[in-house]
């Protein structure tokens, strides 16, 4: 880089100092914006350790006074003052549906992606274009329609109704297809010549090679199902099926919302964020990749 700076400096005498000021300004801007992005989370963590009156009186102070674990106690049913919140039930539900949806998506999306990339069958092109068309229907538009179908099938307000509709997602199929298209064929062909069946080839030869894509898909599916809100909102009704998202939404806005109780609500929101955050920091590179896979240019 230095050589470049000197060349431009030779051409434009102001280059050197101008560069430094530009850099300082950029740093300051980035730091300022970065602070604005972090501060809400910092306030959230601090407030989760405050008492209700303290949180109401000093929303900005970064020192809980008095320091209190009351919110955490209440959420995990370890006493504390105030009504119990079925937080552990939400957590269990979220974990359960996330587990099933993630497993289903990774397996079924890979299968379909492989078939669309590699297998030669009638109607493949039609199916692929159909997939693209269906994927472009905005999700919120389907809120009411999805409920109608679940109701007709008799799986409204059940785990089946929560999980089955999310077992396959178009974007995941697309990611896997893109990956399989880029895998050289020779490996598969060698396996075929050795007499392996198509499924066998897929399972023991192709899938192991697709590790990076599978990790991306797993993360994407986990994040998607853990944070899913609208589908669970229209697929369930009873409190026993509440997940972290629907439970929290009801706690904050609806029937459970007694008084302000902000420390409690922010603690619940914080705990709901933790698993995804941990995953995010552990697999940052894959997150970056998956964010861009949403913008696949063909």
């Amino acid at each position, binding site marked *: 880089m230095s050589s470049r700076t000197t060349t431009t400096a030779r051409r434009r005498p102001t280059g050197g100092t101008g560069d430094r000021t530009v850099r300082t300004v950029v740093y300051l801007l980035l730091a300022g914006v970065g602070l604005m992005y972090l501060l809400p989370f910092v306030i959230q963590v601090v407030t989760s350790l405050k008492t209700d009156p303290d949180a109401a009186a000093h929303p900005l102070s970064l020192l809980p006074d008095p320091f209190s674990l009351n919110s955490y106690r209440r959420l995990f049913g370890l006493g504390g003052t105030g009504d119990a919140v079925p937080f552990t039930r939400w957590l269990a539900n979220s974990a359960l549906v996330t587990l099933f949806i993630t497993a289903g998506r990774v397996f079924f999306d890979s299968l379909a992606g492989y078939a669309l990339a590699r297998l*030669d069958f009638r109607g493949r*092109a039609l199916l692929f274009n159909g997939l693209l068309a269906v994927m472009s229907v905005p999700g919120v538009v389907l809120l009411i329609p999805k409920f109608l179908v679940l109701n007709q099938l008799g799986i409204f307000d059940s785990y089946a109704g929560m999980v089955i509709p999310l077992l396959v997602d178009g974007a995941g199929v697309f990611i896997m297809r893109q990956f399989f298209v880029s895998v050289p064929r020779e490996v598969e062909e060698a396996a075929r010549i050795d007499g392996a069946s198509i499924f066998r080839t897929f399972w023991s030869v192709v899938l192991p090679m697709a590790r990076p894509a599978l990790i991306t898909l797993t993360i994407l599916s986990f994040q998607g199902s853990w944070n899913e809100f609208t589908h669970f909102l229209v697929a369930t009704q009873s409190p026993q099926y509440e997940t972290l998202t629907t439970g929290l939404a009801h706690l904050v806005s609806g029937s459970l919302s007694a008084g302000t109780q902000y420390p409690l609500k922010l603690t619940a929101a914080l705990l709901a964020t933790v698993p995804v955050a941990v995953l995010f920091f552990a697999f940052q590179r894959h997150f970056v990749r998956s964010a861009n896979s949403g913008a696949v240019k063909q």
Partner: protein
Amino acid sequence: MSQHGNGAVAVPVGAGGAGAGPAGRARGAGTQRGRRGPGGRRGTGIKGRQGMWGWLFVSPMVIVLGLFLLLPIGMALWVSMLHWDGQSNPFSGAADFVGVHNYTDLLTREGQDRKLFMTSVRNNLYYVLLVVPLQTALSLGLAIAVNSRRIKGKGLFRTVFYFPSVTSSIAISTVFLFLFQGSGAVNALLKWVGITGPKWFTDAHGLVWSLLGMLGIVDPDRPVPALAAHGFLGLSWWDWLSGPSIAMCTIIVLAVWTTSGTYMLIFLAALQDVPAELEEAALLDGASRWQSFRNVTLPALRPVLFLVVTLGLIGSWQVFDAVYVMSQGAPANTTLTPAFLSYTAGFQDADYGRAAAIAFILLAIILAMTVVQRVLLRDRDAAGTGTRGRFPRRRTS
């Protein structure tokens, strides 16, 4: 940019996949390469097998997406022509068939239904008008700043900006609800600077009238008679021109804050594809940094810009989660959006016909917006200098 081989394999005529033929020994499997071109002399045995396996492999996808994406669309189209309370079977004739009545109630017939719907469209329109430009500009700015080669700690900044995008919308909305209370952190911050912040979530005043009110031009609480007396589609001009309410502004801030990280990453990926030599060459030729950015970098970003604006448009016509948690449409219906209205029409008023009709009109709005935006950008592109930047095929997820 991989060309997706749409029909990369010409399906040979008479490749009857019906009934997997005797699974012939897969010798010479090399012949069944899915190569383009006419070399379609493939063993039917393998072909048949592939056909069977292919359909087997895609069947879970076909079943799930068919049942929960395609079928709902068809069913909703039917239900949107009924007056149905969700109790009976909609296909048995127990529900009244009303044809396009639900649609006319929302669009042309004078009445409460239309007024509410048009209010929700107005709210969402202002939301889109603010969110899309703001998130696009902010994410592009962040991407350029993080991408500049002389900045250290890029990874850290990238993480900080992207983190809000991975957390749940419900959790974030909860935090913002706390921050924007009347006596909350945001107003405490504003007090430091000497500004008395509004009571965010209870303030139904339109932004436009509030700003003009500050300048003393209009009184936000007393509509101008000329504007209040006349209207369009069931809303007075005073209401149409009000801008987003103060309460809606908090949801707008939330949306910009949570989405800019994602779009920043998309821009970053595109920026890293711009050959550094090009920019360097421009700089060496004596172009200023701004010129090089304007004439080299920006044209290369055009397709991605198009993509981000499109994704932004599609996303911002679907505001739901934040409205559900933060305001439920209050105050005075100024944060009501079509998506939320569709939800309440079904689940609270048990009027599924109207709910489905709202969903379809919303779908039409989104499609129309996307088309309009495509046409506008294409014209600009044709008029512009760049013949590069062929538009990528759109993808939304």
